[in-house]
């Protein structure tokens, strides 16, 4: 038995079985428990059966949300999906998500300059070190007052919550570029900005992308908090709404859907990172 050996290489098939085991076990356990509950109480809403969830997800993906006016004209499948509850919720959330992630790039530039130009560092660093410790959610009431309860306050919540981390991370990444590289740049005739952008930024960029990837979870967390508290659309808004009447048959597929989307974004970014930076060694 080589389970407790550090110098072993799992064979292909056992490795495959092992890596899927917990998924299979989780699904089976759920099946079993849901089945039990439904046998005792056919109206159980806490653990919907798989059939119920599939049906609810199909409805979500093909029908508009309740309360939205339904167009009478017969629609094609694509049009129906586009107008469906799932699609409108996903689009609303994706839009906020993308805007927030895009707003993290200026944060990267700020961090870069703070680390490269000591006066910039002196001006900003202490402030952001403190700012980073503020619990962004505690500012939510202020954000609602300052930016209104629509889109801007939700995006500001994310930016305030995540940007300081990205800034400080970029500062650290920038500082970790070996001194030799900067001296080398000077001796080759590069000026301050050429060194900052063409030497330092270029070589930390794949690490910056990885740092943003690690923080996608935080972006999502703040986004969900914002949507659950004050929103009229979005995936988290829907989950909060359905929670009131125990719509677990939709909530569970929604949670998996969000995980899947986030997984895809992360995978996409990691692939893009490898494509853009073939020289990058993890």
């Amino acid at each position, binding site marked *: 038995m080589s389970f407790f050996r550090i110098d072993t290489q799992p064979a292909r098939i056992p490795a495959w079985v092992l890596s899927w085991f917990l998924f299979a076990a989780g699904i089976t356990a759920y099946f079993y428990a849901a089945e039990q509950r439904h046998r005792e109480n056919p109206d159980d809403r806490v653990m919907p059966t798989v059939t119920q969830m599939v049906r609810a997800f199909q409805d979500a993906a093909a029908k508009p949300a309740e309360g939205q006016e339904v167009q009478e004209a017969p629609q094609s499948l694509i049009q129906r999906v586009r107008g469906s509850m799932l699609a409108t919720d996903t689009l609303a959330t994706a839009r906020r998500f993308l805007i927030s992630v895009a707003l993290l790039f200026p944060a990267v530039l700020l961090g870069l300059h703070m680390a490269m130009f000591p006066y910039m560092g002196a001006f900003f660093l202490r402030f952001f070190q403190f700012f980073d410790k503020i619990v962004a959610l505690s500012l939510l009431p202020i954000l609602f007052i300052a930016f209104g309860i629509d889109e801007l306050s939700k995006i500001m919540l994310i930016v305030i919550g995540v940007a300081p981390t990205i800034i400080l991370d970029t500062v650290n990444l920038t500082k970790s570029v*070996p*001194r*030799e*590289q900067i*001296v*080398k*740049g*000077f*001796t*080759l*005739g*590069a*000026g301050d900005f*050429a060194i900052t952008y*063409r*030497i330092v930024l*270029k*070589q930390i*960029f794949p690490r910056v992308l990885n740092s943003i990837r690690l923080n996608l979870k935080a972006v999502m967390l703040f986004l969900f908090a914002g949507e659950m508290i004050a929103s009229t659309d979005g995936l988290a808004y829907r989950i909060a709404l359905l929670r009131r009447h125990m719509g677990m048959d939709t909530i569970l597929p929604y949670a998996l859907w969000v995980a899947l989307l986030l997984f895809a974004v992360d995978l996409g970014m990691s692939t893009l990172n490898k494509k853009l*930076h*073939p*020289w*990058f*060694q993890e």
Partner: protein
Amino acid sequence: MSINVENVVVEYASRRVLNGIDLEIDAGEFVSIVGETGCGKSTLLRLILAEEHPTEGRVQVQGRERSRPDRTCGYVPQRYSLFPDKTVLANVAFGLEVTSGFWNRNSREFREEALRYLRHTGLSEADAKKYPHQLSGGMQQRVAIAQALIMKPPVLLMDEAFSALDPGTRRGMQRLMKELWRESGTTVVFVTHNTREAVCLGTRVIALVKDGERGSSVALDLEVPHLDFDSDEEELTRLIARVESASVKMDRPASMAVPVIS
């Protein structure tokens, strides 16, 4: 006079690393600097680069004191000498591109010039497309030398540039370096802790020697004759032994070394 170091003292916190260094290096010399690890060789090089400034004294290169590194000195450190995100060709062409106007960038001329330097330092056209991490240590240092020399710096500073290489590669690099020095006529300051390397390469060998218990270093010009790779092995061994005994401690026979003063 290419490099002029006058009565330089460097202190870190409470520790004095360099204690009154005087050094004059003429244009076109190949000066080896030897000394134990931690005696301040890199510190001296950083002073000449103008990356650091002395606590006391003055450092001039080409008759000027500088506030920060510039094109006066080319630099080949032991590690991190290449830009990891750029191909070999782009690494070598970087200096030419960054110092030209915005519109001249990526010009074919620069790339051809870079290729010429690469070929000259023993790399092929196929290597030019690779990234630094795909090259061996010796190849990387060849690129780093080409990258520095393409800017035609009056002074070339090398800090243990060959220390991480295996002996065979290292000997090849030493020969290459000497050839390049002869052709280019640059002043070379070559820091190493390998005495054989110092003696074989340098037209002059300077030792940084710790004086006394406090361990701050002074410079001694070990007046060794200029040897070449194919000189008599016995003579070489004798010289190496002499340099080593002189550079390890201060209480050496007086005849072997004289302080560098002009």
